[in-house]
């Protein structure tokens, strides 16, 4: 087995059988995660390849790039897989979250403002705990804002500091 090289981008192997670097997630694993957790169809990612740079941070890219390229970024960071529970990024949820059919919590205007400000809040939710896609209505359509961690009746905003706003 080769080891992960931190300075370069490596394309995710398609399946476990294609894996050359131990522990690296696979494309199939990533597609299953989005489908099982959020109901996002694998077809949504048909034009995107998945890459890893460093350990545990995955990127989604729709262009052409050679294996092992040493550049600053390829597409968008879209999934963190270092911990037991995988966590989509704010940018991934904003880009792909509109295709989600489950584990989406649609909040009212006041709760949306609290969430984008980066603050935690008490909220009722009957569904699963864990990382949820937080959405609101904007110009009459549901629009995903980012990721919230729902635990014990509380929605914890995961909006990164640089993206927090007082709307």
């Amino acid at each position, binding site marked *: 087995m080769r080891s992960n090289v931190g300075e370069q981008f490596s394309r995710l192997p398609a399946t476990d059988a294609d894996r050359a670097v131990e522990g690296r997630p696979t494309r199939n694993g990533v597609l299953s995660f989005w489908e099982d957790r959020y109901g996002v169809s694998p077809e949504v990612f048909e*034009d*995107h390849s998945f890459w890893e740079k460093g350990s545990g941070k995955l990127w*989604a*890219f*729709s*262009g*052409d*790039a*050679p294996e092992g*390229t*040493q*550049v*600053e*970024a*390829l*597409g*968008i*960071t879209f999934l963190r897989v270092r911990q037991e529970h995988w966590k989509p990024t704010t*940018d991934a949820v*904003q*880009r792909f979250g509109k295709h989600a059919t489950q584990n989406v919590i649609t909040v009212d205007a006041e709760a949306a403002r609290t969430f*984008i400000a980066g603050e935690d809040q008490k909220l009722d939710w009957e569904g699963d705990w864990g990382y949820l896609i937080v959405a609101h209505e*904007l*110009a*009459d*359509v549901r*629009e995903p*804002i980012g990721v919230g961690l729902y635990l014990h009746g509380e929605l914890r905003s995961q909006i990164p500091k*640089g*993206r927090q*706003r*007082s*709307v």
Partner: protein
Amino acid sequence: MILERYRELIDSFDAFLGACDRPLPSVVRVNTLKASVERVERALADTGYEYEQCSWYPELLRLSTDTPGNSWPYVHGWIYGQEEVSALPARVLSPSAGDRVLDTCAAPGSKTTQLAALMDDRGTLIANDANLGRLSALRTNAQRCGVTNLIVNSADAQTLSLAPFGGDPFDHALVDVPCSCEGTIRKNPTALEDWDIDHVRGLAGIQRGILRRAIQATRAGGTVVYSTCTFAPEENEAVLDAVLETESCRIVPFETALDTRPGVTEWNEKTFDRSVEKAQRIYPHLNDTGGFFCAKLEVTGE
């Protein structure tokens, strides 16, 4: 004062000076990768913002607020704050979905994200910049806009290697170079305080190097757009003139609904190749924008 050196070039010089003293309207571009103009207009109206569409570019909206960053359309990456006239070069380049496109001096990303939208996030777009700090801002901006066809690269554009991108030449290149920024005087009233002719000459050398490398990296039949936000012919027509002598390319005309003036063929007793007239100069008083320079080149190969 510095701008006096352009009195001979500019008709209605007093109107020009008057416009340079006025602040710029706040303008945002609709990021069509994430929302339609209509949906953005509805969201802005719901928020209580007033807006006015720019007639030459329907995706540009002049806003009644100076802080569009604290709005839901901004949070969602539906809009991007961009000076109106700086939306010209990407539109002149006009890449198509599926193209291979280079943006040589890309940070902080207003033109990069505009190119990605014009490409419908398909094909491959390379955003290069020498400054890592500014590239970090570009990455944040591109991700907020949901751009996934982007490779971000940090290198000196004068010696750019194609190896990190697979080695193939580009279909198009945008060369929006670092410049003396005279045309940003309305946004940044201190823009001319450090003006120095030696600095201008130094910049011109870098600009020639970047434009030359971009032409070499673009396939025959491909397009290179050169732009600056300065009035100085040393950084505009003189750069084109020098590059025409050494590289396989020609300047071609382009159309825009903006009011513009042709490139100048003489400056400080120097005469330039007549084709620099096909470049276009934009003065602040002509369209109530910042100042700008834009030229379209076709790569001819042999």
